[in-house]
Every structure is written in C-alpha cells, then in structure tokens.
C-alpha cells in the first residue's frame, strides 16, 4: 500500500474489474452473499473545538487536524437484493493534531505546529440501500450506520511539549456517533466490483492533557468526511 496513491488506485481497480468474469444475468440465489473490499480512504477533518481550558492557557488556544489517508477494508453481507450490511474499518490512521490560535505561546511557536499524534481505531457498521436492479452493473447506494472511534498510541510531540510545558499525558474519550454514506458500485461480473463512496460521520471526544499534574481540557468535534475508492471480491 505504500506506493498506492489515490490517483493510481481507481485505474488499478477498474483494470482488475475488467479482467474479472463477465456479468451474466443471475438468479438471486446465485448472487454471492459475502464481499470483501479493499481500497483507500482519504479523510478530511472539519474540526470544531472549544478553546483549551486550564491553568496557564492564554485565550484562543485551539487545535486542528491534518487530513490523512489510510487503507480501507470492509466486509459486506448481502441481506436482500437491495440491502447490504457493511462493516468498514481502516488501517488506523496516524492523525496529526495541529496547534491553532496564537502564533506563539510566550516565545514558543504554536499555530501550525504538529503538537500531537494519535491513531484512530474507527470501525463502522452501515445498512446500505442499493438502487436499481441487481442486474445493473452500476448501482448507486446510500447507507446509515454507527461509528465507534477509539484513540490510541497518543503522543505529544516535542513541539507540543514545548507548548504544554513538559512531558504530557494525552487522553481522548472514545466516540460513538452516526455515520452516513453515499456511493456507487460498479460490478461488471459476479465476483469483482469497484466502489466509490463519500461518508460523513460524527466523531467527538473530550481531550485532556496532564502535564506535571496540571490538567487542561477541551471538547473536539472532528467532523471527519471520507472519500473511499475500493475494489471488492464477492464469494
């Protein structure tokens, strides 16, 4: 996955799909019930956070996140001709938290600095409704579901420690929130397919830092939106 880019992935997936078994009209009981997908997530954050609260924090100290990219995996269970259950997760991306607010805290650079990193374990379960008939190679779909996000491997960078004032323990509460998706599936045959989807989920967390016993807190709504391009194999 290291050399796979968002640009090159769709071409690869479409090529793979093209060499797959040609589509023939199939009866419903011949349609495979299980599908695995692999692809790539491009995640865009739309962060809204309260200013950091706590001792020795000047007004206006806030945070932002850098957009990130990661591998996407999903298992899809066909429930009916029109309904799928998707269990989606990605290789937990390492997100970078960016300082937002004053250019400096005292003389320590802050705005735009990468102050912390964490990995997101964020599986989602979605019930998806597919439009058009099963014989159609192109099937748009919409889905709703629930997302669970847990943050781990949380690190405050040296730049972050310079801002907080020393070695800092970072905690983020886990999040459970709704997720919605729209997408389109192209399945020219029985086995192989490609999809592209756009998902929005609500992920929020209470952030707490502990620097030498001094606690600072904020509440963050991450507002992640994910563009997914993936290939699927049904069986």
């Amino acid at each position: 996955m290291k050399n796979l880019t968002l640009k090159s992935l769709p071409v690869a997936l479409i090529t793979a799909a093209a060499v797959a078994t040609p589509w023939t009209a199939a009866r419903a009981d011949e349609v495979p019930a299980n599908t695995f997908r692999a692809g790539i997530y491009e995640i865009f954050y739309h962060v809204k956070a309260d200013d950091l609260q706590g001792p020795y924090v000047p007004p206006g100290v806030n945070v932002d996140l850098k957009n990130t990219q990661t591998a996407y995996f999903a298992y899809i269970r066909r429930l009916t001709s029109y309904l799928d259950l998707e269990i989606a997760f990605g290789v937990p991306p390492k997100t970078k938290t960016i300082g937002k607010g004053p250019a400096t805290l005292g003389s320590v650079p802050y705005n735009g600095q990468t102050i912390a990193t964490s990995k997101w374990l964020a599986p989602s379960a979605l019930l998806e409704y597919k439009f058009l008939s099963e014989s159609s190679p192109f099937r748009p779909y919409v889905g709703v579901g629930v997302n669970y996000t847990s943050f781990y491997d949380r690190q405050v960078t040296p730049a972050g420690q310079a801002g907080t004032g020393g070695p800092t323990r970072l905690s983020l509460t886990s999040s459970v929130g709704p997720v919605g998706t729209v997408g389109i599936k192209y399945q020219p045959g029985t086995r192989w397919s490609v999809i592209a989807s756009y998902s929005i989920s609500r992920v929020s967390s209470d952030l707490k830092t502990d620097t030498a016993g001094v606690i600072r807190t904020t509440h963050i709504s991450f507002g992640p939106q994910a563009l997914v391009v993936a290939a699927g194999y049904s069986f």
Partner: protein
Amino acid sequence: MKRFRSAFGAIVAAVLVVGCGGTNTESAPVNNTTTHGTLVENPPLRIASLDATTFQAQLSSSTAGQQLLQVTGNPTCGVDFYYLKFYTAGAKGESTVSSGALMVPTGAAGTCSGPRPIVLYAHGTQTLQTANMADITNTSNTEGALIAAMFAAQGYIVVAPNYAGYDISTLGYHPFLNASQQSGEMIDILAAARSALPKTFAASTTDGGKLFVTGYSEGGYVAMATMQALQAAGARITAAAPMSGPYALEAFGDAIFFGHVNLGSTIFAPLITTSYQHAYSNIYAAPTDVYTSTYASGIETVLPNATPIGTLFQNNKLPQTALFDSTTPQVTIPNNPQLSAQLTALLSVPNNPSDPATPIYAAGFGEPNLVNNTYRVSYALDAAANPDGATQSPPVAGAPLAAAAPTQTLRKALYTNDLRNGNWGPMEPTLLCGGDQDPTVFFSINTGTMANFWSPEVQAHVITVLDVNGTPGGPFAPIQTAFQASQAQLLQFYLSAAGGSLPLAAAQLQVIEGYHTNVAPFCALAARSFFAQF
C-alpha cells in the same frame, strides 16, 4: 452462515489486535516519597518560556512594566518559568506540599546558559491565597515579574517559594514569620530546584555553584532566617541581601503595641497570631482572647484568602487600618501609679504633630478595631517588665538586645523568632537594604537594630547597610539618587491634575503609603549590584 461467522470473526479479531497496541505519552514522573525537598513531579511544569525580546515587549506593554524596566534594565536573557511542587514541613513538622518558582535564564549569550549563579528569593506578604510566583502569565504577579526582570533575565537562576499555606499547599495556614519553618522551606525548595534543573528544557543551564540569598519584606526576614539556618547547617552561601524585613521581631512588636502602628498591621496581626498559635498552641485559648468580638469569628482562616483583601475589608472580615481601640485602655498596676500612668500614656493614640509618621500611626486606631484592649495591655505589661534592648536609648552595640525572658505568649513567640537570637552573625558578605521612611516595616527598629547588634560585622565590612533614602554616597549612590528622584516624581504626580491635584499633606501621605512597595525594585537593584561583585 458459517462463512459469515468466520469472516466477521476475522474482522473482530483484526480490530482487537489493532486495539491492543495502544501506548500513551507519559507525563512527568511522580515521586512516591514525601521527603522534604523532593519534587512532586520532575520535570516540573514550564508555565511559560519568554525570550528576551518577548519578555521586554511584555513588560513594555504596561506603564508599571516600563517603570520596572527603567530600574532593572532591558532583559539580556530569555526566561523559562517553571512551577515547582515540592514536599516540605509545616510549623509543627507536619508534612505538606508547597509550590514555587524556578526561573531559568535562556538564550545564546554566554551569561544566559551554562553554569549560572542561583538567587534564592523570598517574597513579601501576600494576602491572596492563590498567589503563585511562577505564574508570569498573571499580570498581578508583580513581584514575580520584578525578580524575573531583575535577576533571571540578567543570567541568574531564580528559586522562589510561594510559601506553605499558599497556592496548592493544604496546610491550612501560613507559618508567617516562623524562622525555622520558613528557612526550612527555603532550603527544601532549593534542593527541589537543584534536582529539577537537569530535567528542564534548558538543561544546559546548570547550577554554577554560587548561591545568593535575598528577599523582600516578609521575604527579607525569611532570607535572613535562611542565612542563619544554612550557616548553622554548615552550608556556605556566596552573599546575601535581606531587604526591608522585620528582623527584630520583638522590638518591632513592642513598637506597634506601644502605638507605632505600621501600615498593613491589620493584615499582619492575624497572619502572625495564627502562625504562632499553630506553632506553639499557647497564643490564646480562644480567638476572643486577642481579638474584639467584631472580628474574632473566622479570624484564624481569614488570611491568606482566595478572596481579594479589598473584598475582605468591605465584608468586615478585617478592619482596614484600625488595629487598636481608639479608646485608650487604663493600665492599673497595683502600688505603682506612676508606671500605670506612663503605660496608659504610651497606649494612647499618637498625636505628636512634629512626627511626620503620626497620621500613619494614628490610622491604626479606631472602632471597630481588631485587637482588644485587654490583650494589648497584657502585652504592654510584659514589655514594660521585660524591655527589649533595642528600646534602650542609646542602644547598646553588640549586646543581646532582645528581651531575655518575656512572659506574654505572643511576645515569647516574637522573641523565639527574633533574628537577634541564635548567637550568630553573618559570615558571608551581606547587604541590608531598606528605606528609612518605610511605614510598613520600620527601618530603624529592624534594619537599624540588626546593624547595631552586628556592629562588629558592619565595621569589618561583612555587612553593608543601605538606606535608599539616605544621602547618596558610595557605590550605591546612583540607586539612592534614582529612588529619591522616583519619590519626588511621584509626589509631583499626586500634586498634578493627573494625580488628583491633592494638597501637599495628602500627596505626601499617598507617597508614603506606597513607600514600602516602591523601595523594593531599588533594593533589588542594589542586591544585584552587590551580588555581581562575587
């Protein structure tokens, strides 16, 4: 269905495997020991890091800061402000956590890193329980800014406790003017700071081996007590500069009880009484033994307080100035009408028109007042029976000037903590600085008494006495001139329209009311000049 279960199981397993790999950044290690002088967390929190340019800009943004810079000079170093939390002991040896500041110079200049001298500084009395010398982000932390600009920004590592009873301390009272506790706390924070230094962001700034001890007002007393304690422990300091401190406590107490009431007395009285009650358990059986019924309730916890002192005055928790009753108590000593009359006269409201300090003294009388007349008389009787040597005229140089055997419990406590006690004298170069018009901590009864008590050391030039209000002369003449010019400027301000066009007497009163505070930066500058010699 079997395939579904196994596929879903694989996903769950993968999720769990990923989820188990989590780690987290560790915060500062927490000590499990409560040994005095050890840090609660090391490395400590750095509250702020200011380079020289930023610190100068921050100070220049206010009028007070600009005036301070005129005295201290512009910063040549940046300063990192660390918040130390350390273990120490209360007045009875009870273990407690205290806090304070470690200010570390930073920057490329040779005087800002590498081995640097340490200034161990003790601050003046604070009424606000939340006061924190390390918090340079708080604009009301003027003394923190003063010592940062005066010492840390000029290349000195500064260590300064907030004192037990303040900030995070759970002691519940402040051991005010308790020589053994406060000197012990100074020694504890010094040990804590030395262990923190190698773990700071500026670890290349190290203890250069020179130790200077100084402090102002209450801190002047604490600095001198620390000199005594370090000397007794066999630890050497490089030099010291106690400033405007109430060193000769018994003599000072006598002066106050006999009517020379100092400015701020209604603040100092509950602090010292509560402090000694905790230390010796014999100052009173009940607060009403000392205080009038108006103020006795809650007096033991009134200071330090999270509520600003102005609000405490407004809420009648303390009188603003009326320490004593304006109705003079009648002293009756059996078979001694003459002494009875003398003491009664000494306890009357001062009204000497030729003494410029009379309005200050007289402001210490009124109703409702803080200390009841019965208690005042008991103190006065002991002072009459066992006079302090400093009240002798002329004073006897080198003699044990403190009263040898006071009997009244407050006076005994003052005697115990009087820095003339302990059969000692400074062995290292010492500057005693103050201003002779100080209405808060009287110069002559404190600095003058110590100078007289230690006249051999003064004559040997181990001790230098500086009155910033004295006739300019010697190496500190520019500082004396600058202080006196600032006072004249202040007087002109109060006489001007901008200052309220006050009549001369009222303007002079305004100047004198700010005198104790205004002396501080000039004495600190003298201390820095003094230290620079070593």
